[in-house]
């Protein structure tokens, strides 16, 4: 906007008022109600109206840290503080939610009471990373609120180049399709890595999201650096009585059109009103179970697939997470220790060699999966490869472990092996 523009204080908000009509609930109506108790909200709506008029934003961002924390507060300063002094400082505190976003009203009311005392009183449930977002504190009340929240057992969420707040689907708590205890795993990882969540010491952000099955309700595969997705290894469970009832109710054509023919590996068949599955070919995609949830169910040998490297578009474009561990059980403390060990090895290697602001997916794209696996001490697995090589130009003699600039030279592995073979044959 031009430097010379004169801003009038907006008492009326005709543009925002247009967002009060229509059947969907309106945040404008709710905020107007709030403004009766909290005058700052009237000023917030005034600035927002100015944004709607100018198609321009009037917030500046900066850093504000609570003692002992390197993140968790998103500080905002209004550029129109002359017109709207009550929102000159209008910060967000990120709060770790209970895994799975389950609440007792007692805790939620406690959050409201504390936040009412110290702020303009907006709560967002939840932000895109999954945090509880508390909006509307200033340079003083941010700290007062944070202390009081922490006294009551709450804690700040992640921001910056740190582990971010974890998210998960409802999982075992209320879903028959879940193959892992999503809430328990999320709580375990948050507890274990709470220091890394609060104190940025990674090249850039690192997100875990935990989904109980391939339906991926936590959107982990595209939205997290390390998705944990539930799956199983044994046979799919079939209740033939329920299959019979389903066919009777919907007709065989419905089952063929909507279940059998949509199976990605064509491993499911309907014969004499009974379902047959070639379990060796089943990829556990969940479609048939989604449609026939009374008749079909996940197996007993359950665990998780661990993936790596998903992120949205900046800077190199989208990366989809890819498989790192095809299957591992996540039931016992020992299982969880294997996972957290792996995470620490990844953070060490990526931490040493990643560029600033480089997500782990971008890092792998830059150094290559081979170098990455070598760096974290993991053997390659065919499940990590989506498509086999189609180019015949391969320098077999150079198939040494990948290396990063500055690393010591490795001996070419293939040549070594040939030498050994020759020696053995002699």
């Amino acid at each position, binding site marked *: 906007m031009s430097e010379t523009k004169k801003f009038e204080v907006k008492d009326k908000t005709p543009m925002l008022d247009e967002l009060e009509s229509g059947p969907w609930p309106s945040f404008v109506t709710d905020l107007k109600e709030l403004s009766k108790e909290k005058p700052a909200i009237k000023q917030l709506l005034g600035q927002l109206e100015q944004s709607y008029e100018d198609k321009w934003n009037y917030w500046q961002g900066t850093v504000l840290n609570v003692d002992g924390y390197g993140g968790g507060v998103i500080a905002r300063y209004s550029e129109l503080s002359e017109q709207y002094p009550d929102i000159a400082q209008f910060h967000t505190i990120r709060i770790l939610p209970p895994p799975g976003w*389950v609440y007792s009203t007692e805790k939620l009311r406690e959050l409201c009471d504390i936040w009412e005392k110290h702020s303009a009183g907006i*709560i967002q449930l939840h932000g895109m990373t999954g945090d509880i977002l508390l909006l509307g504190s200033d340079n003083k009340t941010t700290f007062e609120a944070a202390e009081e929240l922490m006294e009551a057992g709450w804690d700040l969420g992640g921001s910056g180049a740190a582990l971010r707040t974890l998210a998960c689907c409802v999982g075992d708590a209320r879903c028959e399709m879940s193959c892992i205890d999503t809430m328990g795993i999320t709580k375990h990882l948050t507890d274990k890595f709470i220091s890394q969540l609060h104190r940025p010491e990674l090249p850039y952000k690192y997100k875990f999201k935990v989904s109980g099955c391939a339906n991926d309700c936590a959107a982990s595969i595209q939205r997290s650096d390390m998705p944990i997705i539930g799956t199983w290894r044994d046979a799919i469970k079939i209740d033939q009585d329920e299959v019979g009832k389903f066919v009777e109710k919907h007709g065989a054509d419905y089952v063929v059109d909507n279940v059998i023919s949509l199976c990605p590996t064509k491993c499911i068949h309907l014969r004499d009103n009974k379902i047959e599955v070639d379990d060796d070919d089943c990829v556990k995609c969940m479609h048939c179970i989604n449609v026939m949830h009374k008749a079909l169910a996940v197996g007993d040998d359950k665990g998780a697939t661990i993936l790596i490297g998903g992120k949205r578009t900046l800077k190199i474009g989208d990366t989809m997470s890819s498989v790192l561990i095809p299957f591992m059980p996540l039931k016992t403390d020992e299982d969880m220790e294997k996972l957290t060990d792996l995470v620490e090895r990844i953070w060490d290697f990526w931490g040493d060699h990643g560029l600033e602001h480089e997500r782990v997916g971008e890092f792998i794209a830059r150094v290559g999966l081979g170098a990455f696996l070598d760096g974290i001490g993991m053997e390659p697995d065919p499940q990590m490869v989506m498509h086999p090589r189609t180019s015949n130009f391969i320098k077999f003699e150079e198939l040494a472990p990948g290396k990063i600039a500055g690393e010591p030279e490795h001996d070419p592995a293939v040549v070594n092996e040939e030498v050994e073979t020759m020696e053995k044959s002699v």
Partner: protein
Amino acid sequence: MATATKKKKMAPRDNSAPDYKPMLHPLMTKNYGQWKYHESVKPGVLVYVAKSGDKLWVVRAGSTRTLSIGMVRKICDLADKYSQGHLRFTSRANLEFSLENEKDIEPLIKEIKDVLGFAIGGTGHSISNILHTQGWLHCNLPGTDAAGSVKALMDTLYDEFITDDTLPARVKISASCCQINCGGQADIAINLQHHHPPVIKPEGVGQCELPKVVAICPVAAIRPRQDENGKTTMEVVEEKCMYCGACHGQCPTMEIRDAKTDTLSIWIGGKSSSVRGGPSFMKLAIWGLPNNTPRWPEVGDAVRKIIDCYKSSAKKFIVASCHLLQKPMG
């Protein structure tokens, strides 16, 4: 007084996330990991049946996500009255009330509509609540608003939220206010699009760490330069720049936004779940829509057109992601 100057003791640090166990509805605690199946009762209402035979009815309501403390307390009042003081939020900002008694469903629905003003739905083959970002309400980088555009769009998609069988499959929508796209991948995603390289405000250059700004550019389009007075500033190689705005987040003086030229784009085909064909990224479908406050009618019309095309011609269970890419829109 000596005590007046005494430094207040700090609250405990690193509490971690609250324990979820006391937050669970008693039937969720009792049947944890022991659920058998679930069924749709009607749009917005599901019943979960446990191996023990217990039944838990769940009523889902679409919220505004941005809530006043007063509204959160009203939500708590209903949860106290109907769900034994427990509730859950979904990943798409919907509320879930858990009921032990089937007969409580209708009274609860009536109170959600009357007291909260929220819609009941978002289950089955519906358009669920739109994921969105902060926009002009609280972000420092946005080129458009999110809460407002989402409210306007949900008004036009209301019928698809409150029904669960008029679409071939579930449709997930997201809205983002800049090209960082915090709203994320979706069947249909609305994104702001910039149309020229950042304009550098010389007076702000001193506040930025130049090496970091240079390093953050994905196409190496930013380089340091000396101005006429020998002061170090930056320049952008216009042919290389792809208007992503990565530099703007690092250094606010690299102004990527332009109220006169920024437009909105619609992307289709993003899918997280591995169901059927596996996950997929979204692709550009429509671009150049005007950023028209306060209700973005052109965006609403375009999304409506996509939905109608999908509704009228896709096969059941084929998500918008797969279908729309194979069929030109009418």
